[in-house]
């Protein structure tokens, strides 16, 4: 694995970016130079150091004098939390429903697959907005929205795999010697789907990160006082004339993170599942 990663330059870049963001999220309270919510109106709207600012606030300050670098660092926490738990929840829901659909077939399958159809005809932003509007702003709700908008891929994957495994003769053979369903699932189905599921999860995380940023931008993500990249961007937008960096920097943070996750996902796909690569 390490060898493959060293050979794939883009994969290496992706993994490093992801590790850096995770590191920032885990150690935000140590590495951030300021409290991200501390206001200092005497020093508001300062430019970053490379655009005429000073080293007290390397990336400048926002309209309330809060330190932008600290807010970018703390912002990574929500990004990582939502991406991580949203993906896990989506994976659990999708695997369960996909397994039930594939295993029981008939009307159970038909019902679940119709739900999948309906889900696919809902733009995820719309779904997210709708649920966020109904449930209100909270981290838990953003994670639920992330999961609801991405479980379908896992369900299809697991269902497809179960359907193909069910047809295989050796499964008949195993069953005829009295092997239990749970054993068949653990020994024969899970090993087959683990690689595509990991790839799916990584690429799905990129989507979830963009989704969380969009929700925060619209003010429908986590509570407004928690710093997030999307929120910083929408606040910064109103100060484009005095300090355009307020809108530029959080966007760069989002883009680099999503790019890193995607590059990591592409590498994982090549590494785990060479036949998927066209």
């Amino acid at each position: 694995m390490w060898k493959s990663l060293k050979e794939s330059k883009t994969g290496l870049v992706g993994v490093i970016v992801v590790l850096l963001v995770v590191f920032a999220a885990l150690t935000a309270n140590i590495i951030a130079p300021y409290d991200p919510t501390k206001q200092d109106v005497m020093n508001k709207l300062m430019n970053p150091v490379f655009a005429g600012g000073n080293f007290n606030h390397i990336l400048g300050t926002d309209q309330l004098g809060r330190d932008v670098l600290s807010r970018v660092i703390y912002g990574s926490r929500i990004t990582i939390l939502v991406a991580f738990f949203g993906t896990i929840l989506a994976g659990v829901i999708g695997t369960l429903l996909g397994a039930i659909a594939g295993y029981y077939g008939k009307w159970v399958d038909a019902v679940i697959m119709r739900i999948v159809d309906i889900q696919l005809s809902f733009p995820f932003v719309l779904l997210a907005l709708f649920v966020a509007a109904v449930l209100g702003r909270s981290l838990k709700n953003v994670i639920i929205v992330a999961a609801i908008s991405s479980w379908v891929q896992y369900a299809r994957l697991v269902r497809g795999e179960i359907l193909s495994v069910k047809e295989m003769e050796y499964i008949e053979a195993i069953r005829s010697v009295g092997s239990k369903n749970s054993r068949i699932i653990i020994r024969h189905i899970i090993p087959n789907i683990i690689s595509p599921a990991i790839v799916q999860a990584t690429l799905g995380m990129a989507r979830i990160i963009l989704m969380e940023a969009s929700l925060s931008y619209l003010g429908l993500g986590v509570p407004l006082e928690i710093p997030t990249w999307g929120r910083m961007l929408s606040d910064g937008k109103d100060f484009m004339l005095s300090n355009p960096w307020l809108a530029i920097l959080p966007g760069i943070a989002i883009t680099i993170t999503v790019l890193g996750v995607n590059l990591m996902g592409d590498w994982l796909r090549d590494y785990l599942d060479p036949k998927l690569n066209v």
Partner: protein
Amino acid sequence: MGMAKYLGKRFIQSIIAVFGITIIVFIVLNIAGDPVKLMLPDTASYQEIEEMRQKMGYNDPLIVQYLRFLGNALRGDFGTSYKYNEPALQIVLERIPATVTLAVSSMMIALVIGIPAGMISAVKRNSITDTVIRSLALLGQCVPAFWLGIMMMLLFAVKLKWLPTSGFDTWSSLLMPSLTLGVFTAATITRMLRSSMIEILGKEYIDVAKAKGLGRYVIIIKHAFKNALSSVMTVIGLQFSSLLGGAVITETVFAWPGIGRLLVQSIENSDFMVVEIIVIFMAFAIVIINFIVDILYCLINPRIKLQ
């Protein structure tokens, strides 16, 4: 399975999907909150609220309420907007043309960029051009649309003053929102077309065409691209869904007077009647577009395996 039978089956599935969507929307909105409390002033007594509930039919069983909602919806009656005090459907209908304009022009931009880019990238595989196109396409899928929109505003409207920042007054104001919204789709089409073209260019019949002495461009356009078109069609169908979703954000960034911005505003105002229509309309539009894509799919490639 014959084409007619397949399309018939897809049609029934689409209708089921539409029904499912109305059920979900209805249930979620009923959990969402008590519309009666929103209609009455805060000072309303418990008794007044109860009377109103009874009068509006909110005390009936959910299934009765749903059927009534469906019946009214079929007659085009979606209730009254709390915010504007007008029929909710009217308010939404007025905003639809702006969103359709934006969605169509974004899709045009995506196709105009995506198709040539994907073809060039596949034909010149592993060249510098290919690397540049692939990198840009990847970047296009990683940049948040709203940020791209703000950056374009900063550059073209604030710094260079070439284009208006927002609104829908002249055709030039359509340019930035469409680009913002179209970039992700353009990137997706490029990547999809590239990989399916590469796959097709490796097939035996391409070698046969070459051996026959057919020109390079004839092979690329007539043989490879024509066959790759069905995969592009699928992407277009799927992308319309994310395009309508993306419109919500793009319209908010550019203050575009479409249903996306109306949706966000209505959510903020708890104007649930309007929210309901927009969600149903968008889902409906996507189901219909996907059905049309299915038909086109069959027409482009009649031999396609139908499952």
